[in-house]
């Protein structure tokens, strides 16, 4: 054991540590930097309790929708219909609430959206169509339906929505808007579901290594159906809460939630547990989106520039996670080569 080798090892381990943490906490660091920049540029407006609550309020619906999508992504499936389901939830809520008891209306709308998730799940698991194509199909069908449903009233539904219902979108408890409670509730429940229940762990197993799950006797079918039902219901809830916030519904109202949910979920997968979708990551991603949106609005940055920055951040975050991982692997490989250990894994088996 020469001293030189020992010293080199320490350096290598430090470097590995930095690379590892860089990969894990890069997005969190990015979020803090964004916060710092905005706070420095607009100290009196941005970094105030009111504005922070405002950011949380603004992202609450996205958080709910993206959390549902996260469950599908954990299962290694795509749900492209969430935007259209959110729209459907909104137009149905705006259409039904004037005529029914609010509780029945809301539950009914979410049940319909859950049903759409069920149909998605059934098509994907029984007919073995890829989730990408299936949900692309349902997305188009639902968008068509929403246009048809609103066509009688000039595309916008707004009249007769009960005041009490609208209060959900505007009211607050202890200065905290109700919508934040909804988001926190959904995130906590899904976090516990995915991390602390058998169902959730099996979802990760199915998504992470379908073969291993199959050989362990886990039924992917039921879990996938459940995943799509959850993502459908939560997209529906998003739509309902949109109506509560905006007081109206029109057939493009939920579109943005598709792209935004994917953005934040992938930002999340580049955080902390890199390469895995998880609720905490999705929350971080959502916060990044919310902070950018809020900060840029305060700085009067035009919308088109916001979109450009948002897209660039997504690509940077996702590719940097990959970059860190490659770097780490390269460091480890080189170390393994130096100490004479062999890389693992043989070639594949025979016929």
């Amino acid at each position, binding site marked *: 054991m020469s001293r030189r080798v020992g010293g080199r090892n320490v350096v290598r381990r430090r470097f590995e540590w930095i690379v590892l943490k860089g990969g894990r906490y890069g997005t969190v660091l990015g979020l803090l930097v964004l916060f710092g920049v905005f706070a420095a540029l607009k100290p009196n407006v941005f970094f105030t309790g009111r504005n922070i609550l405002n950011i949380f309020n603004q992202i609450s619906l996205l958080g709910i929708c993206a959390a549902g999508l996260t469950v599908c992504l954990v299962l290694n499936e795509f749900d492209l219909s969430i935007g259209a389901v959110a729209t459907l939830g909104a137009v149905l809520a705006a259409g039904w609430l004037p005529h029914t008891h609010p509780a029945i209306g809301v539950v009914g709308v979410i049940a319909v959206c859950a049903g759409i998730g069920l149909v998605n799940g059934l098509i994907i698991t029984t007919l073995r169509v890829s989730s990408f194509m299936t949900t692309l199909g349902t997305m188009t069908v639902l968008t068509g339906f929403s246009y048809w449903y609103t066509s009688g009233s000039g595309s916008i539904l707004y009249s007769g929505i009960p005041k009490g219902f609208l209060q959900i979108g505007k009211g607050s408890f202890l200065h905290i808007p109700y919508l934040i409670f909804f988001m926190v509730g959904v995130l906590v429940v899904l976090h*516990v579901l995915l991390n*602390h*229940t*058998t169902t959730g*762990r099996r979802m*990760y*197993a199915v998504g*992470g*290594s379908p*073969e*291993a*799950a*199959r*050989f*362990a*006797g*886990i039924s992917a079918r039921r879990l996938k159906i459940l995943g799509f039902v959850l993502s459908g219901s939560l997209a529906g809830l998003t739509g309902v809460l949109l109506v509560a916030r905006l007081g109206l519904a029109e057939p493009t109202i939920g579109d943005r939630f598709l792209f935004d949910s994917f953005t934040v979920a992938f930002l999340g997968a580049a955080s902390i547990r890199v*390469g*895995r979708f998880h609720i905490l990551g999705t929350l971080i991603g959502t916060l990044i989106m919310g902070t950018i949106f809020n900060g840029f609005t305060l700085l009067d940055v035009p919308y088109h520039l916001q979109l450009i920055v948002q897209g660039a951040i997504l690509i940077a975050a996702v590719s940097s996670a990959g970059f860190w991982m490659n770097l780490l692997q390269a460091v480890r*490989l*080189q170390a393994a*080569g130096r100490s004479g250990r*062999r*890389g*693992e*894994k*043989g*070639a*594949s*088996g*025979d*016929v």
Partner: protein
Amino acid sequence: MGTTGPEPLRLEMRGITKTFPGTVACEEIDFDLRRGEIHALVGQNGAGKSTLIKILAGIHPRDAGEILIEGKPVEHLSPRIAHDLGMRFIHQELNLVPQFNVAENIVLGDPYPLRKPTRLIDWRGLNRHVGGILENLNIPIDPRRSVQSLTVAEQWMVAIARALYSKGNVLVMDEPTSSLARDDVRELFALVKSLAAKGTSIVYISHRLEEIFELAERVTVLKDSRKVLTTEVASLTLGELVRHLVGGRLQELFPTIEEGRTLGDPVLEVSDLSATDGRPSDLSFVVRGREVLGVTGLLGAGHNELADLLFGVRGRVASGRIALAGTAYAPRNARHAVSRGVALVPAERRSQGVVGEMPLWENVILAHLRRFLIDPVTRIVDRKRARRSTGEQMKALQIVATGPDQEVRNLSGGNQQKVVLAKWLLESPRLLILSEPTRGIDVSAKAEIYALVRELADRGSGILFISTEAEELAGVCDRVLVLRDGRLVEELPREALTAHRIMEACYGE
């Protein structure tokens, strides 16, 4: 385990037959397994081992034959039913969930311990529980470690622990030691033996024959889809086992190699070549024109990796020099390799060799599209000419198909392989690398491919024939290099080339 009276066998397979379009994979195979027995199953690639095991696992339905478990006939098998009957299969891929830690992988598919009022997972209880199980099995692994941080040997132990945790009583292990170091093998063997002593029955599949003598009680040899024999290991010697395994194949399978030919100039010169992952390490050799140089070793010895490395598609050169026809060559990517006159018949035919959904003619011209353009500006392919060339190749290589328009995926494995060869033979390559060229194809197609390889060599190309099958190396090559753990351990000249000799060199000693 001492047995009193006629105890039912844990597993009995009788007259198992399975055909796939174009090939018979298993023909009338019998196999049985006693309680607490380690029974080795050996055979060369394509002998029918994998198919037999997949039938047992319920992945392939059998065409004929009976399966009895604990003396009771089982009509229908699915993966689920096989699992419920206590059968556990550990493949080389191991089927662990890479994102999970050891504890979660072990309970995968079984109930997690839950905390009383909340019904949430009791992580501490899980770790304690799994820790206890690992301790009982004498496996010194912390249940909280991520499986990705484990060595391959440790991953095998985790996979075994999982099989036992889920109450498996028949354990089928496919090539567990192919990527293990010797010390790890010893540990794994100790575990396997202790399981057998406790009553678990084990089917042990391995290419490393000497292990069988160390571990197994009985051995069953398969060859060409049939059972050759089942016998007590103690009644055999290694030499006898090799003889059963190789058998007396027809001599016509291999082309005659002209003695005393003059070889051409060096085509490929490799000196002190090492890959970044050590496969290969410090390898030096020369391939001359008109020469067929064989490279072999056990699974994972580095010979298959050498093919990808030289073609520039996988792995990276750490040190060493390569020269092609006298000028330096640094493999960058496939395009570069082709431009330097290197061709590769890859090991994974379906994914790397052919585009199954494309017709035959498109596959054949794929690497030389430029030759078939009507003009260089529009870059439109001259289909008539391409079909005509393909037709000529089909005739020359005796490809059996309905015509140049037949989709390649509908051809038999042997004919697909000939399509891959036809692709490169459009322009005689300077160096042809073949990696496991006869894997999973039938005997007559093998013979044709061997003849083609020799013919190409006679026309002046240098050929690197990489294979794990000793027999064909002995039949086709001028010289054979044997690798172990990435290093050259022996070079066998033509005079010394017998399947037996090659196998001995592969297994060491």
